[in-house]
């Protein structure tokens, strides 16, 4: 069945017809072309599909698009609107926290949400906040370094 939903994605309002069984992940990628949000498992196990829903990190593969109605969604594409990179994005580049890059969008959003609620996290808090975002390439060291680097800047 089709439902009409209205929600905000990266600051812009959208009204879309979505099927009841389609996930937010599928709608973001296929209807809005926001392919920065990745598919790693479609089971809530990897974090590659992480987006922010009203500022909270969620696995968009576990949320139906209809559930997003009336909410504010942020994806990686929204982090650098206007061409200026977000401090976290700059830090990821500076620390070489990116290898294959497939986990990167989800990591960035989890980190952004962490810093929003806890601007000066400890290393352990950073690791805890990222524990749901799997990365097979980096060993996490540089990612944690990058987030801590930004948290220090926030002072």
């Amino acid at each position, binding site marked *: 069945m089709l439902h009409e939903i209205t929600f905000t994605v990266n600051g812009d309002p959208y009204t879309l017809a979505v099927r009841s069984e389609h996930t937010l992940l599928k709608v973001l990628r296929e209807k809005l072309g926001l392919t920065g949000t*990745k598919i790693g498992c479609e*089971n809530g196990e990897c974090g590659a599909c992480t987006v922010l829903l009203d500022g909270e990190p969620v696995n968009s593969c576990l949320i139906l698009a209809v559930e997003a109605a009336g909410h504010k969604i942020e994806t990686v594409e929204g982090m650098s609107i206007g061409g200026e990179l977000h401090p976290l994005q700059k830090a990821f*580049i500076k620390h070489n926290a990116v*290898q294959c*890059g497939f986990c990167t969008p989800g990591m960035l959003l989890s980190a952004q949400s962490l810093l929003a609620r806890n601007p000066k996290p400890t290393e352990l808090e950073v690791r805890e906040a990222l524990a749901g975002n799997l*990365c097979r390439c980096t060993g996490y*060291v540089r990612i944690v370094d990058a987030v801590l680097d930004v948290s220090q800047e926030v002072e």
Partner: protein
Amino acid sequence: MIEQTNNPVGKSVPRVDAFDKVTGAAKYVDDMQFGPGLYYGKFVHSPYAHALIKGVDVSKALALPGVKAVVTGADTPGRIGLYMKDRYIYARDRVRYVGEPVAGVVAITEELAEEAVKLVVVEYEELEPVFDPYEAVQPGAPLIHPDMAEYKWPNFIFPEPGTNISEHFKLRKGDVEAAWPKCAVIVEQTFRLPHIQHVPLETHVAIARWDQTGEVTLWSPSQSPFSQRDLLAQSLDISHGDMRVISPYVGGGFGGKAGISIEANVVVMARAVKGHPVKVRMTREEEFTCTNVRQSLNAHTKIGCDAEGHVLAMETRYYFGGGAANDYGVNIARASGYSCTGPYPIPNVKGDSYCVYTNTPIGSAMRGFGMPEIHWGIEQIMDRLAEEIGMDPAEFRRINCVKTGDTILTGMKMPAVDLVACIDKATEAIGWDKEKKASAPHKRRGQGLAIMWKAPAMPPNPGSSAIVRFNEDATLNVYVGAQELGQGAFTVAAQMAAQALGIPYEWVRVSANPVDTKYSPYEWQTVASRITWSMGNAVKAAALNARRQILEIVAQYWDEDLENLDIKNGIVISYKSEREQPLKNMVVYGLPNDNFEGWQGGPIVGAGKFMPTYVTNLDSETGQGARAVVHYTVGAQAVDLEVDIETGQVDILKIASAYDVGKAINPDLVLTQIEGGAVHGMSSAFEGMFFDEQGRLRNPSLVDYKIATAMDAPREIHGDIVETPLEDGPWGARGVGEHVMVQTAPAIANALHDALGVRFNDLPLSSEKIYLALREREAGGE
């Protein structure tokens, strides 16, 4: 003004692909848009580990509205495979593992394709399966490939038709029987490793289109676009010129996206619906059951040393559980045969390395290519030997490890490396001699060391090529067919081109994404840690070729000798006349003669290639030969850990690694490989695929098959770089991408022994296993 980095080789310049990847702009195959003409494919998987196919009825599936085609083994008579051509694209007469594609359904939506899969009726007659490679080589074991004699394989592979053995590599050196009596200590053990999976975050996905014109295009995240093209062209009778593979960024490879897995199946689907692209994306469950895995291993290894600690003899038998098809696996067993001693020039060696068919998913390349598997046992035995003769395990390794010029097991002279320096750096970084206290009374602290070697395992003649092309403003496009898997291939290509030409790094643009076999220069495969070395040599050659063209034009223009000219910071200079000529414009438009009476030069395009020409075949009975491999990379890793003896929980506190990379083209990227590899290696020690008695995978999800998270990774990962130049490496560089995880598991095992006095011969490790081993030891009254 944008910063200019001159002479970028050896500098940690930023990655060329990072911006795209942090903004979400980087495109992976699943992100590509194909419009409403796109069809979706789904596989019908075998539910049996071993069975004959008695009949396939696709009529009900085909009758479903929206279903466009169903393909089966009847459509794919040709066999396919990288080294051993031993499988059908869709199973024909028999299935050999649970998950094997038996048919492929094409429909207008994914949901319809899924529904149609359920309507395909396959009639099977079950056969007895065999899962363990050691059992599979016993007389009377079920035969998995009765037709093996008909298969095609290259002349360096030695299968034994009529058995399950797809490769038997023999290494014979010296006289082991005569050496055993001279040994003061001999340790003989059996080690077992389960199948594990690469677990790239991006699952396998492929999109194929078969045009009416006959051109066939495949989009796949591939480490081997050119090899895929070759295999597809051969197996489906397509001209190489009409078969096109396009591969954008790869979301993690680790060997799993080398060679071929689901891609041919998708091309066959596309052939059935000409003109329409067809897309198949593996679910995470399918990724586990139906794509490549790392082979299991049973190793029986015996090593002896004299009272002074000199290792005198080794006898080993490696049985790799290669899975249902061993197209790649045969070469893993071969590599494990010609490197069977690990990094020790042991004078007397008897080694037998087998690749064995088993009714499990297809074994293939995984980061390390046999080396993590064989080092698991070797490095634990070396520790036991050191312990028994009362020598420090680091010292034992310093004495015995391979050194420059040594004659190694195949008779080849060891090219220059400094493994002792690696041992020194890793042990120093971990604080080897310092007493370490556990953090609580119920915890035990331990340290372990392991060393490694690995050669690129390849055919003797894998080639690389590269092209460089100038733009008007003297920016340079570099074309390579090597793939960016996250290891930094594109970045080092840019660095090397800039260095060889004498232009700033910032002037280089890498035109390699996507790799496209129609436009990219040839690259054999992005595997074997060969790219920095092999692609690097090709890029350097292309850049030097362009440089020479430029200098020739300017030499003529100035009427000077070529030898007196150079390019520095993007300007041609003469050491003699001290004249200067910026590259801008002249690299496209050339230079005018006096009074503009004619012009010289023209657009500069440089081409370069590289292929090793010196690798020799090895004797089939002894494994001896002048040059078995191109080179070896060596390294050492030390682990500091703590174990909770009440729960068996292991906490890896620190991993310190040192590798001899010849020359670090980009030192920070080398360190990121070392760090990521250490965690990958650590994770691998706790990973295992578990099959039930019917061969069904019990843990095909990321909840049940756990990989290391940010919470599991050690707080401290230390990396050191040793630089002993490689003779034919660009600026001396050799590869390091795989080596970084080869010996992590045995280093952990050695540290566990240091902490607990308990040895573990079988992977995976787990808290439960450690806890039970401790209880058992208590019960034994030790």
